[in-house]
């Protein structure tokens, strides 16, 4: 999302003349939080994470963690990591790339144990928590993949929300009229593409600022679908707004595996498509000639043009592809999650997808895990409201957004957008 007015500091130089203290400071703050909240504020209960249900074919023992002990353990280890990071930066050495991941995982374990331990009923189903997170993350992943496709080619896609919403609407209407959920799925992809066409034409042909087009498109789609929902759809819901749901397809044997069975092998076609899309787009972008061209256009359009790549048509087709991908995500809302369309039902998922894309550093795999993390927080909020917890649900809901702000501020890792993202290419 680099605009001409970029004041972003340069990447840290390898000769270590400029020391970047963000990582140790961030680690230090996390360690202090762990010490104060997880360890000193640790509840005197044992947090139980149920892995299997009685009906499962394979049963694993429940995980029981004493909250105070785990709290102290995480606080000590996190402090050690912070000290290590501090020493590394002081001596001008790089921090091992696995350290932030280990740190994040430990922090999550400490947080989960603390929050479950302090609940009225300190026991949650880990399998249900993870499976629910994946389900909630599916539209976010499609949305952020759309963002990846657009931004990698140099077009900022704020219109993800509009693409999801139009996909949800088209899926509901087409599936209702045809009586076939798969027709709805295809219609959703078309609707998402249609939104993309407007985005592409205005930003690539007419050089209108991409952020403006995106913001306005979201309003336009919200208005259009809302208008049609309260005229056509509400007048005859039986014909227009009662889509059949996509069936859940279970892979025999594998779907009975503990934890991963439900998330990998017991999904609707949209869920399987999501995994396929992540892998295909990742390989496409980083392992094929097409991907190299796309990234060249997004990073340095002049150079790409000089090499004979058609900059604007590459951009155009990529933005269209992104719209189709986001459309599939929109179909999830009306064909899998709920079985009718209601106004503004995406409820900001497109903006969370945008956050996931940035948090995932403009990489399909990264966006996938970021979206999973956001889905996890959303689902945790639901689960915790059932077991009863002292943490207000609103703060749980806030977390993805705050994490994203920290991410773009560079406190959590470094996120750098494609260099030409946001700038129209005008051939000289």
């Amino acid at each position, binding site marked *: 999302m680099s605009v001409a007015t970029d004041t972003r500091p340069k990447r840290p130089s390898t000769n270590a003349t400029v020391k970047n203290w963000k990582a140790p400071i961030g680690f230090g703050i996390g360690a202090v939080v762990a010490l104060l909240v997880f360890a000193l504020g640790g509840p005197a209960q044992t947090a139980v994470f149920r892995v299997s249900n009685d009906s499962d074919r394979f049963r694993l023992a429940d995980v029981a963690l004493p909250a105070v002990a785990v709290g102290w353990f995480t606080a000590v280890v996190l402090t050690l990591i912070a000290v290590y990071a501090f020493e590394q930066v002081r001596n001008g050495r790089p921090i091992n790339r696995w350290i932030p991941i280990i740190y994040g995982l430990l922090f999550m374990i400490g947080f989960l144990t603390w929050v479950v331990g302090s609940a009225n009923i300190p026991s949650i189903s880990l399998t249900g928590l993870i499976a629910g997170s994946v389900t909630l993350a599916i539209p976010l992943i499609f949305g952020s993949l759309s963002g990846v496709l657009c931004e990698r080619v140099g077009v900022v896609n704020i219109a993800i929300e509009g693409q999801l919403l139009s996909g949800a609407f088209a899926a509901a209407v087409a599936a209702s009229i045809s009586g076939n959920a798969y027709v709805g799925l295809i219609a959703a992809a078309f609707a998402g593409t249609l939104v993309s066409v407007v985005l592409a034409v*205005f930003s690539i042909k007419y050089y*209108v600022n991409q952020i403006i087009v995106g913001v306005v498109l979201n309003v336009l789609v*919200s208005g259009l679908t*809302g*208008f049609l929902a309260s005229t056509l759809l509400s007048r005859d819901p039986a014909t227009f707004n009662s889509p059949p749901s996509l069936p859940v397809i279970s892979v025999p044997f594998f779907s009975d595996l503990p934890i991963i069975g439900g998330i990998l092998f017991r999904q609707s076609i949209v869920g399987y498509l999501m995994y396929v899309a992540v892998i295909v787009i990742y390989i496409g972008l980083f392992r094929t000639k097409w991907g190299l061209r796309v990234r060249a256009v997004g990073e340095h359009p002049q150079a790409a043009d000089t090499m004979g790549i058609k900059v604007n048509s590459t951009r155009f087709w990529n933005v269209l592809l992104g719209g189709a991908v986001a459309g599939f995500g929109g179909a999830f809302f009306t064909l899998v999650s709920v079985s009718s369309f209601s106004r503004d039902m995406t409820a900001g998922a497109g903006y969370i997808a945008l956050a996931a894309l940035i948090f995932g550093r403009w990489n399909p795999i990264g966006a996938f895990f970021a979206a999973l993390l956001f889905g996890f927080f959303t689902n945790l909020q639901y689960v915790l409201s059932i077991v009863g917890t002292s943490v207000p649900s609103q703060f749980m809901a806030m977390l993805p957004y705050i994490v994203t702000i920290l991410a773009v501020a560079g406190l959590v890792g470094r996120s750098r957008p494609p260099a030409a993202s946001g700038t129209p290419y005008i051939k000289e």
Partner: protein
Amino acid sequence: MSSQLQQDEASRSVLHRIMGGSSLVALLAVVLSIVLGGLLIAVTDERVAEASSYFFSRPGDLLSAAWEAASGAYIALFQGAIFNPGADTLAQAFRPLTETLTVATPLILAGLGVAIAFRTGLFNIGAQGQIILGATFAAWVGFTLDLPPGIHLLIAVLAGFFGGALWGFIPGILKARTGAHEVIVTIMLNYVAVYLVAYLLFTPAFQNPGSSNPISPRLDDSALFPLLLGSGYRLHLGFLVAIAATYGVWWLLNRSTAGFELRAVGANPHAARTAGISVTKGYVVVMMIAGGLAGLAGVAQVAGTEKVLTGGIAASFGFDAITVALLGRSHPWGVFFAGLLFGAFRAGGVQMQTQTGTPIDIVLVVQSLIVLFIAAPPLVKAIFRIDRKKKKKPTKPDQSSEDTTTTTAVGGVA
């Protein structure tokens, strides 16, 4: 520069903006959007659908039904926004106009907040969150503190400005210090604000005692904006605040050194830095002003129209403000009139929905179409085939080059 020269320049620039090609495009964009909206109303109308079933036997029926559907909706919208000829007294007949001004007040204030950031080259998508924070601060002052009339309102207004400025400060300082893109930070802060106010409204400090709903106590009368036209109308002092703020922003941008620096940062940050202007300070300052203005919109909501704080206090004013700023081309008085127009749409839309059953969402459609068309003058000119006529006139040979500058100005400034 002498005052005479200043006035000359001011009137010339106003004249230029009215007479310039861009105003014609703006007018055509509005007309085009209203026509498209009318088509949408007609296509989805029930009677039109009936008439279309026997189109080949009586084609006139379809056209008249379509015309009636669209024109009926727009007439209702006009009656709800400007003038209602069916009212008993003349004063009552103009009541819709006061409603328009009331609705326009937060739109103008928040629109100014978005516009001033645009002029400095920043995208303030966060007006929504800034409105919520401003409303929250002002409401707390309004129902908690016990102050004499006048001072109470003043403190509430200042608190609202401060609340919005605080929410604008965060993206400003992050942009200045770490390069975090303000679009992302402001979007995220919108959601943080929504959940924050949702949480606060369940705390004893904010929740109305005895109520289980997330709603605050009513603000003290001393903290409310006085009504301008008596108790029969909702129009309040906040509208005058909006006029004052418009003038203030105009003065700041066009007459003050600080405003010149802000515009310089917006036009070319590198040149501004070379000229000794602190770009980072500019980002922080302008985002605080922008947030403060949006915060004032929040004050207009809690201390003017709503009188209590709820989770939906900002409605969709923060997002509408973006379209207002774009339609107003980020000029303070442009924003003012754009706010009036969209305020009229919104006030009239309510009337239209009750009278003809046309959903108010059509207003969103028309609004966003207007902005899309205005942002792409070549498209509007192609639709109305303006370019060809212009080319025949030898007096304006550089019309096409002017077009590209306006396009890039929208891209660069707005």
